[in-house]
């Protein structure tokens, strides 16, 4: 069984790994490189928790052989986190309760990042459409959509929580 060396740029850093044939990026990132933010949910491309960006496009690392990213730019959630503080999407997810158990969060944020890079002012429908490949079992999705809207609208995501509750009451009607 011939192992190969694969070279790619991971979160801005040139990275080299030796892999057996068909080793997935999910395994490379987590088990070989210790980058745990990218999650394991189903290993069949159905849940989205393993989403990474390859040349800025969302892909499912559980379906992606490492050899296929030779020479490409790979971005994971670790690559979004600045040295100090949080990326605006991370701050918005945190402030808007868009994360509960936390398991879908990395995938959601990566897709949201790709969306906003392509389309800085998405409509709610476009946000929902972009996130449709990512499942969440905890939040009911609304806080996640709201968090992305907040960043898209360029709002300060540190809004007072009482304003949120008043807005939620209107939705009931």
């Amino acid at each position, binding site marked *: 069984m011939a192992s190969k060396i694969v070279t790619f740029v991971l979160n801005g850093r040139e990275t080299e790994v030796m892999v057996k044939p068909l080793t997935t990026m999910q395994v490379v990132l987590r088990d070989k490189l210790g980058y*745990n933010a990218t*999650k394991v949910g189903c290993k069949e491309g159905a849940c989205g928790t393993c989403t990474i960006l390859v040349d800025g496009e969302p892909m499912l690392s559980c379906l992606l052989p490492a050899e296929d990213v030779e020479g490409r730019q790979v971005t994971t959630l670790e690559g979004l986190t600045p040295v100090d503080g949080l990326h605006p999407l991370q701050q918005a*997810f945190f402030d808007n309760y868009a*994360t509960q158990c936390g*398991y879908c969060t990395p995938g959601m944020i990566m897709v949201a990042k790709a969306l906003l890079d392509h389309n800085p002012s998405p409509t709610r429908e476009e946000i929902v459409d972009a996130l449709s490949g990512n499942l969440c*079992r905890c939040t009911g999705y609304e806080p996640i959509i709201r968090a992305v809207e907040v960043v898209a609208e360029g709002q300060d995501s540190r809004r007072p*929580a009482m304003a949120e509750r008043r807005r939620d009451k209107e939705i009931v009607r």
Partner: protein
Amino acid sequence: MSEQNLDVVGQSVKRRDGIGHVTGKTVFVDDLRFPDMLYLKMVRSPYHHARIKGIDFSAAEKVPGFVRAFTYKDVPKNIYTILCLIGVGPDEEPVLAEQEVLYKGEQIAAIVAETEEAAMEAVAKTRVDFEELPAVFDVEEALKPGAPILKPWGTNYFVYEGHDCRRIRYGDIEAGFAQADYIVEGRYQPGPVEHAPLETTACIAKPEADGRITVYTNTQALYFTMDNTALILQVPFNKLHFVGGTVGGAFGGKVDVIVEPIATLAAMRTGRPVKYQFTREEEFHVSSTRTAWRIYFRDGVSKDGHIVARQVTSYADSGAYNRHTPYAVTKHAANISGPYTIPNVHVDVHCVYTNRQPSSAMRGFGVTSASFSTELQMDKIARTIGMDPWEIRLINAYRNGDIRPYQKVVEDATLVEAIKGAAKLVGHELPKWAQAMNSWDRGAATPVTVEG
């Protein structure tokens, strides 16, 4: 005491683990790696009901990376009765199957190997000699004479204090029906539901230099799981150190203590860390689900909308084993008459075994099925007698001081206020007699015939 003076009550409090979640730094069980870690995969029954005649590991043992196989003989106390800690029996589920399997997917033997692939291959190469037995999948079929018997005590139901079901008896049901102007019947069948957490059930058991075992787990119930594990392994509780609390979704699906005992046993016997994580297929096909129910209502209702008699026969599909279902049945029985005051109540709730995936806890288990069916039944009553669905509920709403069918005095009713609040929120105007009601006034609701 005004809101501005409080730091937590009435304020939005950010999650302590929120930063970890949004940066991906929160550590889940699968994020832990130990250099000499072994992987556990389970040999499972492909049959719904079968006798085990023998197991042959010879081909499995030849798989490169195979370390060890465990059967029920290796388990110090092979009894998996997770509610034994609160005195609920009987002991009817093994940790690893002995002579018989009762559901497709049941655990038979644990294989531990150097890699996940090797463990999977060894499982595939384990030969189990089965004698297939007839199976039953329907709760009512399982109670009929001639159905295959699943339990060692000779029946397919859980015994509640000598009875074949959980019973509520209040008033005189036949007298109640005799008074009724309408009889309204209904059958409701909430189906089984899989919790489908994004993170599958998992643990890693790791022997430590001081002789203890650290168990990293995503169980919802650390002490519960630790204590059950210790009882199964027959070790003092303080030999185990359970680390957890980070759960990638559970909703009741991670209270079954299903991975920790066998992984911990394997760690103890091999001296190495052992990881046992459910695949997505196992999470769907093997892990417990919300209980499926079949619920029959027969209500006697007077012309003015009072339910004067309620008879309910419910069947809970516990699947192959108890798990938490007998407890769900008790809760269901208590709640099935609804938040309504009914003078004559007759409830039988059966906890039935079938050759299906065991059902267990899931948010509000036992009660959600009661809420679902009672409320559909209320709507049906309203339609049948030609009454407004808001009003039928107000007329029958329980009040403080009323007696529940299980003989408890109501102390905390606010149903009337909740209904009134809901009506206001959606802009529905209730008649004046309803608006005048409250939960402390035990006088009968007196609708006047003229809408007002």
